[in-house]
């Protein structure tokens, strides 16, 4: 009894808070109540980055089929991230992106920069409502802020139902504006990282010569066209085409690339440089099929862009319900991508510097897979609790580049293992 009273109070409290935010009174009728979803997720890579993300999302359905969704996300990131340089048979020293101090990497280890820690707060809002006969419109916005990054976006979507609502066509557009303001500023593309005594009075001057600005920005326009079709009583299919064009700063200011001699030994570290335009096309297909024993959710996505990255994503989930209302849902995801045309694991010192280059394995040739299991249970009064545990594995690959000299002795494409653990509570 006590527990139930507490739950009701929490819901009432959140309802009041949401209403206060919206400037309305907290007088909620029986039909027009808020539904809340809360989740906490922990993502942890072995020896690298870990992140904890908490979400609270509220959805209110009004009597006239209008829907308001609000979502608050907070996440904290700590740990080490590859800086792009290759491992070496000797220890290496790097200057931190801020210019304040240096860090050392052991012989044979993939260089990781352990300065990463950031907290992000994100607010999302979406309003959806019927319009005229057969039309649904939706508008929304998103704002997210972390220490060195800001992102704001707006989106709009219109959908029309045909054929007794068995067919729905939709078209949407989104615009996003992102600003990055890294501590230590924006590095000059392809300039050499200054590595030396950071207490030396000349160090700051030398470091500042590798900086060109304090911040950079990019803007993204997304177009999304979709068709949803009910096939029969058990099956529904969705097909989407999306077009995305990004303009502005897409370089990662924290990433470098090793410049090596003929024997593969690092001679310098250069700040990477990526093109400032990128256009992507994605085709997405999904089906849900209601079998007698469970529900299959299968999807496929093909993406191609003008950085020469092509990717294929396969995702399968199978929800198996039990008679007591509990369910389990195994999940399997497969992903493969080709390398961006300017991806290189290292550059040869005696060759001309390319205009664009990055050693970030995330835009190199890469295969990943995820296996996971979700377990859910009803707690009465329409409340639900679920747990999700997943294992994520990344296999970066060489894009045909031959390792030279000492680079043959070290691991250039280190695999990454991560665990995703999540608890979700809906009330």
């Amino acid at each position, binding site marked *: 009894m006590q527990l139930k009273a507490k739950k009701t109070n929490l819901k009432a409290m959140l309802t009041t808070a949401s209403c206060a935010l919206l400037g309305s009174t907290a007088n909620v009728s029986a039909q027009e109540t808020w539904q809340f979803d809360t989740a906490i997720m922990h993502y942890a890579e072995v020896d690298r980055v870990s992140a904890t993300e908490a979400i609270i999302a509220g959805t209110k359905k009004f009597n006239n089929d209008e829907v308001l969704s609000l979502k608050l996300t907070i996440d904290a990131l700590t740990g080490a991230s590859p800086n792009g340089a290759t491992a070496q048979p000797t220890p290496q020293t790097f200057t931190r992106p801020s210019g304040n101090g240096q860090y050392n990497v052991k012989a044979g280890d993939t260089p990781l920069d352990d300065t990463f820690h950031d907290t992000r707060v994100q607010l999302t809002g979406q309003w959806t409502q019927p319009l005229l006969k057969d039309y649904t419109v939706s508008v929304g916005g998103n704002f997210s802020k*972390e220490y060195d990054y800001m992102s704001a976006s707006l989106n709009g979507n219109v959908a029309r139902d045909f*054929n007794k609502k068995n067919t729905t066509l939709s078209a949407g557009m989104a615009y*996003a504006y992102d600003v990055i303001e890294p501590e230590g500023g924006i590095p000059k593309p392809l300039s050499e990282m200054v590595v030396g005594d950071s207490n030396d009075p000349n160090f700051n001057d030398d470091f500042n010569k590798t900086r060109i600005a304090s911040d950079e920005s990019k803007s993204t326009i997304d177009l999304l066209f979709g068709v949803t*079709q009910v096939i029969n*009583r058990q099956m529904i299919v969705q097909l*989407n085409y*999306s077009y995305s064009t990004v303009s502005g700063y897409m370089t990662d200011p924290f990433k470098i690339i090793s410049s090596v001699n003929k024997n593969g030994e690092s001679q310098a570290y250069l700040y990477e440089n990526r093109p400032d335009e990128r256009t992507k096309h994605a085709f*997405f297909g999904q089906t849900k099929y209601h079998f007698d024993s469970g529900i299959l959710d299968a999807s496929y996505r093909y993406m191609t862009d003008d950085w020469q990255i092509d990717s294929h994503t396969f995702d399968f989930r199978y929800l198996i319900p039990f008679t007591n209302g509990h369910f389990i849902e195994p999940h399997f995801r497969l992903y493969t991508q080709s390398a961006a045309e300017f991806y290189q694991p290292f550059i040869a010192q005696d060759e001309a510097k390319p205009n664009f280059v990055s050693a970030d394995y995330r*835009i190199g040739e*890469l295969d990943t897979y995820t296996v996971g299991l979700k377990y859910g249970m009803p707690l009465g009064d329409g409340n639900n609790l679920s747990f999700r545990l997943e294992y994520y594995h990344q296999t970066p690959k060489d894009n045909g580049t031959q390792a030279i000299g000492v680079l043959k002795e070290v691991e250039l494409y280190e695999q990454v293992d991560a665990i995703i653990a999540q608890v979700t509570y809906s009330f």
Partner: protein
Amino acid sequence: MLIINRYKVLVVLSLVCSVVGMSGCSSLGVEPWERDLLAKKEMALTSAPIDASLDDHIYFSKEATSGGRSFGGGGCGCN
């Protein structure tokens, strides 16, 4: 010539229609009273939006592809 052009127009039109699903899919679908299974929350295309948004964030920051299901946009400087 005119007939060929008309034929072409017809082919293009029917292609467009079937792609768009308006005429091509009219034989598919169900009557409103046959929506018992489709109406289940688990049968929604995005039945677990929280999971979907968490996954989007993870894969956005770990792989070179984002979006497709919905908007891929910007969002974070995550590493």
